[in-house]
């Protein structure tokens, strides 16, 4: 057997344990009312009982259910399957080894109101305090909660799965946003599917920059080259070839990033095509501005005759500056400023603004305008109103 063959066999043997160690999952299902998953210790809750549909928690006081984990594997993610009578906040708590025994780290989790079971995926690795082998976890509920917990699934990923997810994370792209003119996050590596799906929904994004990989590879190669050159007193011809190889690897990293970032620009265009260019006027949505541009385009001809108009939107930024630019020389007045002389009201995404029986606009039930009528309704809460 040649040296090369021996090396390959040795590597294969060394890597074998990783390949047999597949993704591991521990599911605590509460649907089987006869065999609840493990011994849970309740504290402070009014009621927590097993039912056919899961663990029903009803409480008017804050309380928690806790148990020891006894997991045979590390855990990276948690999937909660639940139903809830009202929107509420549940806390997922864990004890991190090395901290005082009574100390639990608290992760608040928002639960939607739903009668149909929903799943909630949590990437626990994004929290510095997360302990993959935590000995104890708990679920805590706030007063007034009525929640059915159907199952808790704790999943751990092996090194190959993490590497595969890290690779596929590189092809997740950010959207074109207001900050894209100042910086582009670039490719990020995450290590489980839940984090991968959420990379750019966080600010800053989840994961680690891919650039670390390039720097690490190049640093190792340069260090090896340096050691070989200095210690082995190799001739310059051999070193030159190795430098050329390192330069080629650097160029590959460069072109790879160019392709990755270029595809992000293409993705911006694709997003705009799908949500904006290809849609009929009433369904056009432009990035995070939604229907704003379409709406303003539809009312702009009606505003041309107006020197000023009142503008109401969910927030001043970015809509006030935008509408000023788009409708100039017609100008929006600041809310609460000079509205008496102005007949036209432009209302965007304000479902709390309505027309009362007197024909006046109301905000939280209080009249804010003279009587008039809606001239153009784009969608509920988005319309143009003109006083008589």
């Amino acid at each position, binding site marked *: 057997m040649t040296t090369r063959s021996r090396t390959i066999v040795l590597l294969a043997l060394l890597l074998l344990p990783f390949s047999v160690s597949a993704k591991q999952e521990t599911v605590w299902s509460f649907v089987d009312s006869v065999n609840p998953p493990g011994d849970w210790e309740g504290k402070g809750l009014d009621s927590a009982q097993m039912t056919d549909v899961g663990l029903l928690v009803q409480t008017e006081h804050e309380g928690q259910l806790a148990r020891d984990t006894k997991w045979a594997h590390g855990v990276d993610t948690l999937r909660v399957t639940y139903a809830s009578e009202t929107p509420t906040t549940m806390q997922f708590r864990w004890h991190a080894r090395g901290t005082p025994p009574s100390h639990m780290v608290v992760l608040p989790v928002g639960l939607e109101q739903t009668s149909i079971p929903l799943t909630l995926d949590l990437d626990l690795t994004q929290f510095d305090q997360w302990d993959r082998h935590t000995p104890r976890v708990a679920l805590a509920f706030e007063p007034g909660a009525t929640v059915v917990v159907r199952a808790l699934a704790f999943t751990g990923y092996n090194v190959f799965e993490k590497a595969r997810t890290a690779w596929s994370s590189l092809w997740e792209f950010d959207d074109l946003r*207001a900050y*894209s003119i100042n910086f582009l*996050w670039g490719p990020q590596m995450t290590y489980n599917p839940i984090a991968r799906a959420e990379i750019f929904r966080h600010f800053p994004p989840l994961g680690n920059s891919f650039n670390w990989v390039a*720097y690490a590879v190049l640093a190792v190669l340069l260090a090896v080259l340096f050691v070989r050159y200095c210690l082995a007193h190799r001739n310059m011809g051999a070193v030159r070839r190795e430098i050329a190889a390192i330069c080629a690897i650097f160029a590959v990293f*460069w072109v790879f990033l160019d392709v990755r970032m270029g595809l992000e620009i293409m993705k911006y265009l694709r997003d705009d095509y799908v949500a904006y260019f290809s849609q009929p006027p009433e369904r056009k949505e432009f990035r995070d*501005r939604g229907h704003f541009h379409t709406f303003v385009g539809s009312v702009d001809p009606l505003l041309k005759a107006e020197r000023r108009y009142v503008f109401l939107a969910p927030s001043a930024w970015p809509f006030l*500056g935008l509408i*000023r*630019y788009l409708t100039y*020389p017609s100008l929006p007045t600041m809310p609460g400023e000079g509205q008496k002389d102005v007949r036209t009201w432009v209302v965007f995404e304000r479902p709390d603004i309505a027309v009362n029986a007197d024909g006046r606009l109301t905000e939280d039930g209080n009249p804010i305008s003279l009587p008039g009528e809606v001239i153009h309704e784009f969608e509920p809460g988005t319309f143009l109103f003109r006083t008589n």
Partner: protein
Amino acid sequence: MLAAAFLIGISLPTAIGWLIVRTMEGGTPVLFRTERWALGFVLGTTATMFLAFVLNVTFGVPFTRWGFLLPQIIILAGLALFQWKYLPSASRLPLPAPQLTLPHFSLLIKSLIAILSIWFLLKLAAGAVLLTATPVYQDDVFNNWNMRGKLFFVHQELVLDIPLGNETTAAEGVSSYPPALPLMKTFLATVAGRWDDGLVNSIHILWYLATLVLVFSLLRRLLGAGWALVGTYILASLPLFLMHGIVPYADAFVAVHVLAAVGYLFTMLQLHQTNARALPFLRFSALATGLLLFTKNETLLLHLPPLLLVLACAIGYLRWRGTMSAKDVLCALAWYAGCIAVIAIPWLLFKWSHGLPFGNAKPIGGLMLAWQENVLLSIAINTFLEGNWLFLFPLLFCLLAVRRRRALASPLLVCTAFFLMVYAGQIALFLFTGLSTEVLRQTGYARGLLQIVPLAVVIATALLADTVDAIKKD
């Protein structure tokens, strides 16, 4: 109609710029043909908008179609007449004008160049659609650059008060910016007869392309076509630089002026030791330096002082070496003084007389000096770990360390010293003043860096070529 407006709106300033550049070359054409058009476009657009500004504030010439066109046509005719009467025709030039010739590459290299060129064109096409066909989106577009262009278009004069303040987006103070860029948008809209976002934004991609052409030409003259392609690819591959080609902000517009001002000074110094055809480059640099002051506020405080310093050192060095006569030195200084004075004096007088601040939409007098936490970390993340610059800055800093003699003891020093001074100046501002928020929130740091990134590419490519040469020789 919009296409015709675009063509007319671009052609006239470009033709004027071309004639100015050609006049500056005199009897010794030194530029590549494409380079002359690119430089003519860059300098011509800014110069004609400066002319429109001066005519408006001094004689009340309105920003109407003919208010723009008539002075441009007169200037164009004057320059053409001057050229016809005083400059030799191409057949009687004392030296042949440089032609662009590409070396013979292997099939592998040709294929690589073809693939990367197609890839670049795809990105450019996607970017062009985003630039011209989507609604305005970024803050400074609708609060500053396009807003002011529309104001000038509607009122047909230089309006300084934007009628409604927007406290959230801090529109107050943007009138202190030089009006060159908004005026170019106004000009295009007046030619078309209406305001169209696609039309007025389209010019930004031309500034981006002009930067690529100038980088290619500078490197081609210095290192040959092969390395020029490498450098141009490096610049074209930078994602944030492409973003600034396809989003109507002003930083790529500043960058191309900085490149022309410093890059041609570097070329002059490089050539002057061996070649009598160096002086025209100094004139291009002088004009670009003057016009640079009419692009954005920070150019006066951040770019002009280091530029004048490297100019003084370069000319002093040539005089000391005896390769530049006293007459040429005086002539060079007169060019710079004249160009800077012609642009800066009217603009600064206007600012001073209208109480406009000298900082970037904020007064600079009130900045308190104090160490700002976490700025260095934010700078490191933006420079080395995000997708903005690929690996340009690790490459550049490594090359500066390894080839420091070439970077600091050769004509390249002009670029290196300017780059390092401006970069250090920006970092000092962020480290010791309240402007640190521009780094911590990542709103200003990268855009400041972007203005000198074409120069960084020129330096990196020159040092890379030098490194490869050194390895080959060992």
